[in-house]
């Protein structure tokens, strides 16, 4: 029983990462609505962020803000502090993701102004007609 639980705790974050990423992927390719596709894209991105943050965590690790005196004295143990590098990378990823969302929503609005719809089928229909 304990070994079973141990196995689950060790991999559960990664399982959820795959499930969320595939949810986003499904929404991106299956949904006809452009806004729904963008929500799916956002879910996809947050799932990847979850993967990176999960890889950087340590059992019993503290947040990566150190006591300055202690750090200057060289008394910080590496195993006590959470890995800060994935956090830095993911800060960049969050900012890029919101930029992408903004531009994509602007394009979706432009499409709506042009064709009067944000549904893929209706847009294709109207492109075919004109």
């Amino acid at each position, binding site marked *: 029983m304990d070994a079973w639980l141990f196995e689950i705790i060790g991999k559960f974050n990664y399982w959820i990462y795959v499930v969320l990423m595939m949810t*986003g992927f499904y929404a991106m390719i299956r949904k006809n609505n452009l*806004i729904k596709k963008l929500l799916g894209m956002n879910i996809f991105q947050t799932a990847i962020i979850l993967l990176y943050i999960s*890889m950087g965590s340590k059992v019993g690790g503290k947040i990566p803000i150190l006591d300055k005196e202690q750090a200057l004295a060289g008394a910080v143990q590496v195993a006590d502090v959470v890995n800060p590098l994935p956090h830095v990378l993911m800060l960049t990823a969050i900012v890029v993701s919101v930029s992408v969302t903004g531009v994509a929503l602007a394009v979706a609005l432009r499409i709506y102004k042009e064709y009067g*719809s944000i549904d893929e089928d209706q847009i294709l229909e109207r492109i075919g007609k004109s």
Partner: protein
Amino acid sequence: MIWQIDLFLLILVVICGFGTVATRGLLSSTIVFSAYSFLMCLLYAEMGAVDVAFTEAVVGAGISTIFFIAALFRSTRRSPLIIRGVDDPHHFKDQGLKLLPLGLSFITGALLFYGMADFPRWGDPGSQPNTHVSAYYIKNAVRETHVPNLVTAVLGDYRGYDTMFELVVIYCAGVSVVSILKQEGEES
């Protein structure tokens, strides 16, 4: 890092993620997505990534939701799934294609599950990502930069150019949004 909270939050996150995709109305879908983002932010904070949690709360949950609601306000709130009835010509055409994306997602997910055997155990201090480069930063970053927050030290000092050109990305995004929406104003 407390695994009970982590498991609980992860289950809630999956429920909210499914809810975002399954909800029909676009506005309610956006609100569920906002809840999803806030739960995700709790999850980051719980794993010790406080800076990422702040940014996710402000940018992911706050600004993204505002963008989506603003876009819905200017276009249409109704998801075409509600409008589309049985007499719609696309209604039957879609049925055959419905299984393809589902199957594709399942196959990709299965491949990812297969590859997961190589992943390090969650929270293992001796795993590959936690041992090689990051030890240097944890030991020396405060001495070299005099910034107690390691994430800020790496972001603003070691990777300063990266952060600077991130501003260029945001600037480009702003310029493209303005130019995309401006064109439409000139034509009408």
